[in-house]
């Protein structure tokens, strides 16, 4: 339990990089065309499984404070 917040922070850091990569490769899925689909199609088999979850995750409505570290503010 003691290291759980570090695991969560690491997951967030990884996720930020992942979102950048996905946005460059498959941005057109959410209406942001960045890379020609030809190249994206070659990568599609590797990420097809995660595409729906990623799309849902980035399109989810967020409160401006959602990303802030409420869990660290111990009160």
């Amino acid at each position: 339990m003691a290291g759980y917040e570090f695991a969560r922070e690491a997951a967030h850091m990884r996720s930020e990089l992942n979102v950048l990569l996905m946005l460059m490769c498959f941005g057109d899925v959410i209406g942001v065309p960045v890379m020609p689909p030809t190249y994206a199609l070659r990568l599609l088999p590797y990420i097809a499984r995660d595409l729906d979850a990623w799309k849902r995750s980035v399109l989810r409505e967020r409160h401006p404070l959602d990303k802030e570290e409420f869990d660290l503010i111990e009160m």
Partner: protein
Amino acid sequence: MNTFFAVVIGLVASYLGYNQYARRIDREVIQSDPKRMTPARLYTDGVDFVPTSRNVLFGYHFKSIAAAGPIVGAITAANLWGWLPAIIWLVLGVVFIGWVSDYTAIVVSIRNEGNSLSAIAHRLIAPRTRIILFIFIFFYLLLIGGAFGGILADVMNSQSQAPLGIIVLMLMGLLLGQMLYRWRVPLIAASLITVGVTFAAILLGPASAGFFKDGLDGAINAITGGQPVVQYFDPTVADPKTGLIVGADRQILPSFIFWALFILAFCYFGSVLPIWRWAQPVVYIGFWITATAMLLGLAGAALALFLKPDVAMLKLAAFKGWDTGVGGALQPIWPMLFVTIACGAISGWHALFGSVGTARQLEYETDALPVGGGSMFMEFLLGLLALLAVSVGGGGGAGAFANGLASFMNVFGIPLEYGRALAFAAFVVIVLVVTQLVFRIMRVTLAEWLGDAWPALRNIHVSTIVSLALAFFLVMTGTWIYLWQLFGGANQLMASLSLLVVTVWLVSIGRKAAWVGIPMLFMYVTTVAANLVTAYNLYVTVFVANVGQPGRIIPVIGSGLMIVVALLLVGAALVIGYDGWQAFRRYRAQPVVRAAAPAS
């Protein structure tokens, strides 16, 4: 009365409240069902929505809610009204209101796709509720920053054994972040080094007291020849020997300002540096320090009657009066006790955090009660420990708490001097780790709120400095109890607004809502009244008493700011209350969704 019976009362109340009341509500009204999908399972993304074991989640949630609030509130209330009213409110508050607030905030979120309370309020009550809550949060955080910043500056200035441990904590926090995220040192090894060094520095604190008191503070105070920078009558100052609120001239020395700026600088780094670099490692190291002190203290409180009976007897007066205000101030037990003790009985912050953090990680719906409700009952025990510590310690304020906790640790043979150093360090750390992050969220709130009108506020340094400057004014008022009560009022008001959202939700789906609605009404009326009383106290005893006096502009500005904040909070609560009432009537006439039959 002794500590053993108080602990027994606390344990019995928790057992009955959880098993006889909370579980029944969970089973019969909420009808939680392990087969119903939770947002964590439905929207798993490995980041925000992660199905997590309830044991891990319990620790995560408890660690996130249990800290300075229950400790400081219990200490302050015991000094104002005695330990008996405090213990009664702690018990009744947690059993009938506290767990309800924490648990329902999580439930309403998981039944609404993991949305935050403000998003649910936007949909269920009115669009403007979301914006008002947003502004509300900013002022609420400002009050936390001011209240905690003030108490930290005071402890660092007056308790010279504390600074060494805190300075080493800062350095070890930086080192731990570097070790974990850059050098990839295993967590256990990194923890042993950084937590071990911090503990050593804390225990060396008494040896360094001379340097900080006579050397550093003495040199700083020599700038004005030992004269105060600001001096004014503070009606909330307690007699250090008896703990009674008597009021006294408060002198703000240059060393106090130095430590206030030191704390704000600490918070500045917590706000602008990446979370992994500073804030998170500091919180982690702080957790081990405070957990050690609290566990030793709780065990000592329970066993003191058998091992050291003289330690177990409560020395503080059981009851000090119905209205303990002095110098024209009002401190009636209702409504002020109910906002002075905030987090140990009920807290709005828990609901806010539970809806965006914990709710998105619950694997099964049936975990909501043990995680949300169970954590609240555990936090109540922490508040009880603080109350017992200050009651056996004698005197007033953080010093009494440290004396009491040191006495409990002394039951196991830990020398009083070291116990006191550890208790003070735990107290400072537990408050500091909260304060540094408050400004982080304040700057985000400020940028979102006013960033379009003043683009400069979108710069993290500008928004942080503006937030710190506002908190500094509050710190300089010196009327710490009012600041704390205003914070408690905002905190409890947020809890009542969370209960309002849940009440409307329950009505909208055709479920029984009185078990949430009655606590909501009680907390709503109480906290609005408390904020008005605090505004009155500030006006009469600080603003009017100091306005026009030479050299007293700072308390006038600070108290004026606090009065404005108090009235803004009340205004925001009235608007949300009106919208909530309209929504309640609308859904009571025609619920949108009938309660679904429990899954088989």
